[in-house]
């Protein structure tokens, strides 16, 4: 092929990433825990743990169990609140931005008002954040725990409420439910990009005690087992909207990430793999570049949605 170079920069709805590699919310802490594994500044972006206006304690133990080619969690969005994060992690995250890695600040809530409040706080106190991401997979307490973004109507409502409160890029993180419909609703409501998929709800029972292996009846399944399902959903979402998509779900290696891009993802996030293969995201930066070279393109953008099927 000779010595060519490939431009790896992508634009995720206004988040200008030097490469398409990102990390999924809740699987990368606030980044610093990974500095012992690699230079986090190499990544295109990281997404913070979902932060609420007030601190959340999350669910009791046990919060995790293993299932084939996957894990399940019921962490319950435990987080120290927007201000707690700004205080504890703000300096590191501002510095990370300076190192060229975009910080996507994720917010969470149990009601439309809580999302709005979290974004307002973050808008004010996290000037370093390149973008905000709304995790609409939280239970809406006012609606009996139905997902905030489980229907197009509900997702639309929260995006509309938040949109006027910031001029920074606004991403919406979708639950793996009615993806195409919800994606369109979010686009119409003003989202700049979509992230998907969140964990898939699952259940694992200890058949001797007859109890859930988690402290809750259900938990979110993540890891390689959900990858093929996630690629299909990314493909569906990318066909349903014209805003860019950040693809995730079981990405554990270069080929998994490349599949996401071919299916229509502009950026790719590593989630569960960060736990067991903590240098995974860093390897993807080089691996995707090598793949793009092999594919004979001059920019990775030429491979986005390039699946021929």
């Amino acid at each position: 092929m000779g010595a060519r170079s490939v431009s790896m920069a992508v634009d995720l709805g206004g988040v200008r990433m030097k490469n398409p590699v990102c990390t999924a919310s809740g699987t990368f802490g606030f980044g610093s825990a990974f500095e012992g594994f690699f230079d986090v500044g190499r990544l295109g972006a990281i997404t913070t743990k979902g932060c609420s206006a007030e601190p959340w304690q999350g669910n009791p133990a046990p919060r995790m169990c293993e299932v084939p080619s996957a894990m399940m969690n019921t962490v319950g969005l435990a987080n120290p609140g927007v201000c707690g994060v700004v205080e504890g992690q703000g300096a590191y995250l501002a510095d990370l931005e300076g190192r060229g890695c975009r910080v996507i600040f994720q917010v969470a809530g149990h009601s439309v008002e809580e999302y709005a409040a979290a974004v307002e706080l973050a808008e004010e106190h996290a000037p370093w954040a390149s973008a905000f991401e709304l995790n609409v997979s939280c239970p809406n307490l006012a609606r009996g725990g139905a997902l905030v973004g489980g229907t197009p109507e509900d997702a639309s409502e929260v995006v509309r409420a938040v949109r006027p409160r910031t001029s920074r890029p606004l991403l919406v993180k979708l639950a793996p439910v009615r993806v195409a419909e919800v994606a369109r609703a979010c686009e119409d409501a003003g989202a700049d990009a979509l992230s998907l998929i969140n964990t898939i709800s699952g259940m694992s029972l200890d058949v001797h005690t007859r109890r859930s292996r988690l402290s809750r009846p259900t938990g979110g399944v993540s890891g390689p087992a959900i990858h093929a399902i996630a690629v299909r959903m990314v493909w569906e979402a990318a066909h349903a909207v014209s805003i860019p998509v950040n693809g995730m779900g079981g990405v554990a290696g270069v080929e998994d990430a490349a599949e996401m891009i071919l299916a229509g993802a502009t950026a790719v996030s590593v989630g569960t793999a960060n736990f067991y293969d903590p240098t995974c995201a860093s390897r993807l930066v080089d691996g995707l570049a090598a793949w793009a070279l092999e594919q004979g393109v001059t920019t990775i953008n030429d491979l986005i949605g390039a699946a021929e099927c």
Partner: protein
Amino acid sequence: MPTGQTGLHDVAVASNERVAEKLFRIVLSAPELASGLRAGQFLEVAVPGDASQILRVPLSFSRADAKAGSVEIIYALVGDATRRLSRMVPGDAATVVGPCGNPWRVRPGQLRAALVSGGVGVTPIVACAGMLADAGVPFDAVVGATDASRLWGADELRSLGASEVVLTTDDGSAGLRGVTTDGLRALLAGRAYDEVYACGPEPMMAAVARLAHEAHVGCQVSMERMMSCGFGACGTCNVALASGGYASACKDGTVFDAEEVAW
């Protein structure tokens, strides 16, 4: 990479053998890692072979020899990952994430310690003994197991300097018939201690903590949780605190003052 920061290390198996019923000792050749480990910390070991089990296995270590560049782990055979681990042979390669967690603490001027190990909790307790020996703190120990066939560690603890080692088994097949708290009660009755170090099943540690509290003796415990990462990234290893809320077993522990924990 700053010293002591959690990192990824290539290791090789130096030896791996059965030491008691369903109990194995593995020695890893891991020079970089060995020199940074402190007693009470743990490792996250990727046991190769079965891609359907994606997570690493959290394992404490019993000895880290910086000079030899080796790390020793005592582990129990419980499920698939530990079974695969038990089949690894000298020369086999693996990767380890570590050091994870915080070490046991020796308070300045500490006089005498009691170590309590239940089952495979013996691993970090052996490491603790090494630490106390280095610090010149005298100690005694209780080692408990379900039955004699699974009892292991008394010799190591003695060779590390334990003045007295009380053995307990649930069925009385070796040592006292009873649980480790019976052994600890015996120690507390005999000598004065200013710190108890405990690792074992959670109900055991809760009982040890109660006993230490009643005896006005400090108590440190090493808490186990289902863990996805081992270095503070996932939030799955929460330990309920007496003060309300949760701490991370892997980042804030695994060693906790027993008084901090909401048992």
